[in-house]
């Protein structure tokens, strides 16, 4: 239990004594940063091909309706309107907005009716949420498109709709997908004997919580630009996290061979999961095919907030049995998540809630009702189910600890999963946990937040501290996950690293370059990263599931080692030294035993290309199949002040301790954590998706949907714990999604510590806090 923290046992395999990490572990400036601070970086929305049409989306005003007819005649007569595409024009090919291949969809979720999974065409003849696309107007300018929209005659048969999950599950609710018989995908998972677990428990606790939707609000709105040259070659620029999935979907829906489709992700103004799906790319290409013009579909901010996917609203009930010492014996989860109208990522996100759990549970049972409603789709959002379940669990465990009279940090520590035990994210494999720095995170965090010290009430101000613990995946845990990398050596000793997964701003182009240069023994400045271009790079599933550093990083190591092998072979020929005595380091071919420089990589590369007996272009590719999904861990601590007169919560200090395995680039690690905490604070305090009874979003602007601004933030201290992960590149695990999950429960538990009140739903608005205080006062005065 009290074993030495993994963080203090970092070992890099087999380095010679002179050899230290040269690039990995250093806070190098990002490879794309100069272009970003000078305004030179080109984003999808900055691309204006000549002769480009603007695609204007016409959206349904009805929440659920059948489209009987669309008369475009008058609209088409508006000057500058070139084409109008409706549901009667588009191909009758179904696809999943999640973007995953068919085999994966059915393979991962064999218990799901496939009709739920491949559930839409480009435009449906029955619209299933307010704002769903009913037509695309292609015009020279937006003004003409808007005028045409006003002249478009759409005849609807309005149908009864389902606004919320509770009604969706009732007997009288209409079916959102006819023929399926129900509005829900039900799924269950379990291990151990839960009934026996509860029977043996000394205490049983039960809590229910309710979580709202959250919008990613990427700063660049969703944008696709498609251009087709006379030979039929399609170039598609998109704000996407998954260029290869997009290419496959364009191919499958429109029947274009992949060789004729080039998908490029230029610089991108945020991802966070919103773009881990099919956006408007297929439609954009289809429109370009019809009009033989370049086409741009760019969402307005209002559309982007209201009609792109959101974090799943969820109602969760947890029941936990513990013995008198606080050991967990049985753990039961019931989740009702709101999928929206189409399944997309909902099945995966909701299921992912089950396993992202850093504790030993004895026995476990999970039931999910993944519920369809006539609302815009829920989807992937940083954390992928983790923030919802983490809030529920850490809220619940905080109460259990307090009621057992235990320090909440001790309750958590004594139930942690340990190295050598089953990897909790891998229900169906026999993966073993090989690193876990969570205990070190908890200890370091407690010290930083001064856990034992409490402030006295001051006037209307009350003070409290709270904590939470969590785990997140490093790569896809439930299916085969692989990346590939290609590295080519130029004749001057520099290299081009071609990698399929997109940099979303988190900096994976930079960490990938660091892993490449470290492995190859060259300088970072000599690595040119080319990423996310399906015509140029090798295949990669994309940037999601916190997989880039680990999965793509391991592929880069494999490819770099193949390049290095060739380099050394030619170095041996060039220098007449034994192959086995040579190594590479810092841009040089060196002696393996002492690092003495022999010949520069530049001279060697020139030799290999022009002077060797058998000249060669050194270019290698490799694929890495993830052999494990080593979880990252984190413990978060909040120190809050609550004003009992106004209900305002002020976070005085926030400490986030993260086990990342190895920080390839420490600045980028802290940057990820800080940014995720800001999103977590928004989720906890101010961000809410508010719908009317027609399921129309009422707050679709930054004025009404409150993301944190600079003045809303608090001091943040990030602690990086490096529990070396044997399967990771240089020991690295993940960080990007991890950091958002534990924020809300740490704050909510601190609010309880301050007020003695548990509020079981987010966000913790002033109004809600004040109402809870008044309710408690009412009860105490009676």
């Amino acid at each position, binding site marked *: 239990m009290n074993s030495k923290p993994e963080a203090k046992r970092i070992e890099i395999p087999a380095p010679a004594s002179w050899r230290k990490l040269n690039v990995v572990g250093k806070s190098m400036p990002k490879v794309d940063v100069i272009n970003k601070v*000078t305004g030179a970086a080109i984003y999808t929305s*900055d691309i204006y091909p000549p002769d480009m049409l603007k695609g204007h989306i016409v959206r349904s005003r009805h929440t659920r309706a059948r489209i009987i007819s669309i008369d475009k005649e008058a609209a088409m007569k508006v000057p500058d309107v070139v084409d109008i595409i409706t549901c009667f024009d588009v191909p009758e090919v179904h696809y999943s907005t999640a973007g995953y291949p068919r085999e994966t969809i059915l393979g991962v979720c064999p218990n799901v009716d496939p009709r739920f999974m491949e559930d839409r065409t480009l435009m449906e003849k029955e619209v299933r949420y307010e704002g769903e696309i009913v037509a695309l107007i292609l015009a020279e300018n937006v003004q003409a498109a808007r005028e045409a929209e006003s002249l478009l005659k759409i005849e609807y048969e309005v149908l009864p709709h389902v606004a919320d999950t509770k009604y969706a599950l009732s007997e009288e609710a209409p079916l959102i997908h006819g023929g399926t018989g129900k509005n829900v995908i039900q799924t269950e998972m379990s291990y151990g004997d839960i009934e026996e677990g509860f029977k043996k428990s000394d205490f049983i606790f039960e809590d229910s919580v309710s979580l709202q939707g959250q919008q990613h609000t*990427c*700063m660049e709105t969703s944008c696709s630009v498609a251009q087709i040259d006379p030979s039929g070659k399609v170039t598609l620029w998109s704000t996407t996290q998954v260029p290869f999935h997009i290419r496959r979907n364009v191919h499958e829906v429109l029947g274009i061979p992949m060789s004729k489709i080039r998908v490029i992700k230029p610089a991108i103004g*945020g991802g966070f999961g919103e773009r881990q799906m099919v956006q408007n790319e297929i439609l954009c290409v289809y429109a370009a095919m019809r009009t033989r013009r370049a086409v741009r579909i760019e969402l307005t901010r209002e559309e982007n907030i209201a009609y792109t996917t959101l974090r799943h609203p969820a109602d969760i009930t947890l029941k936990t049995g513990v013995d008198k010492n606080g050991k967990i014996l049985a753990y039961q989860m019931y989740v009702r998540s709101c999928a929206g109208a189409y399944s997309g990522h909902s099945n995966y996100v909701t299921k992912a809630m089950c396993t992202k759990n850093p504790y030993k549970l004895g026995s476990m049972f999970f039931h999910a009702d993944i519920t369809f409603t006539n609302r815009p789709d829920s989807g992937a959002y940083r954390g992928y189910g983790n923030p919802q379940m983490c809030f529920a669990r850490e809220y619940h465990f905080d109460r259990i600890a307090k009621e057992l009279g235990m320090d909440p940090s001790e309750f958590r520590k004594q139930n942690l999963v340990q190295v050598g035990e089953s990897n909790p994210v891998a229900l169906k494999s026999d993966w073993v946990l090989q690193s876990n720095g969570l205990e070190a995170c908890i200890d370091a965090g407690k010290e930083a937040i001064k856990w034992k010290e409490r402030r006295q009430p001051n006037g209307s101000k009350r003070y409290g501290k709270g904590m939470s613990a969590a785990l997140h995946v490093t790569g896809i845990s439930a299916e085969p996950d692989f990346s590939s990398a290609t590295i080519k050596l130029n004749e001057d000793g520099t290299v081009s690293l071609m990698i399929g997964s997109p940099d979303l*701003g988190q900096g994976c182009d930079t960490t990938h370059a660091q892993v490449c240069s470290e492995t190859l023994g060259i300088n970072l400045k000599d690595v040119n990263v080319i990423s996310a271009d399906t015509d140029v790079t090798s295949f990669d599933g994309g940037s999601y599931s916190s997989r880039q550093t680990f999965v793509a990083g391991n592929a880069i190591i494999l490819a770099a080692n193949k390049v290095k092998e060739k380099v050394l072979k030619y170095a041996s020929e060039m220098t007449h030294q034994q192959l086995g005595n040579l190594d590479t380091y810092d841009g040089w071919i060196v002696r393996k035993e002492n690092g003495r420089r022999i010949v520069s990589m530049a001279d060697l590369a020139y030799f290999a290309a022009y002077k060797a007996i058998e000249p060669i272009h050194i270019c290698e590719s490799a694929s890495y199949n993830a052999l494990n999904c080593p979880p990252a861990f984190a413990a978060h601590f909040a120190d809050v002040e609550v004003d009992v007169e106004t209900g305002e919560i002020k976070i005085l200090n926030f400490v986030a301790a993260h086990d990342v395995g190895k920080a390839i680039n420490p600045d980028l690690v802290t940057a990820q954590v*800080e940014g995720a905490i*800001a999103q977590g604070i928004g989720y906890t305090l101010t961000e809410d998706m508010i719908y009317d009874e027609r399921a129309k979003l009422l707050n679709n602007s930054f004025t009404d949907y409150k993301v944190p601004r600079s003045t809303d933030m608090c001091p943040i201290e990030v602690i990086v714990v490096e529990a070396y992960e044997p399967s990771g590149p240089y020991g690295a695990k993940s960080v990007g999604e991890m950091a958002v999950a534990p924020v809300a429960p740490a704050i909510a538990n601190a609010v309880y510590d301050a007020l003695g009140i548990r509020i079981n739903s987010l966000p913790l608005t002033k109004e809600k806090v004040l109402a809870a205080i008044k309710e408690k006062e009412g009860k105490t005065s009676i």
Partner: protein
Amino acid sequence: MEKKYTINFTLNGKERTVETTAGTTMSALLREILGNTGTKVGCDIGDCGACTIIMNGRAVKSCILPAMKADGADIVTIEGLGGKDGLHPLQKKFVEYAAVQCGYCTPGMILAAKAFLDENPNPTEEEARIAISGNICRCTGYVKPVLAILSAAEEMRGGSY
């Protein structure tokens, strides 16, 4: 056809004469007519600050600024900040402090900070936070940008900027 008007203004030190219409915003003029796409648009209603430029020394949101309002004005965009001799201290510090993630808010935030520091060369952290409170960033949590701005202020006080 909408009526065209001719306007003159200085863009990053160069005199420009362009034709525009009453309905054209400054951000659209900069991006779509002049090709200066360093100025970003995040909301198009003045909420998010991505489109911030400097007009006559003040930070303004170009997505709600009619282009015709720029007639006779001195305009600085992100493209004109560093000049040929390298990066402005704010740009340098944003690089050094890893204050850039997706980078979409960066031009606007840097320009808001520049207009602020030009008037308040020695700000407190709180003042720096307020100065960029009109610039939404979804990536950084503002921690590193604020540090970068304060560090740039220090360098600017000691330097020739």
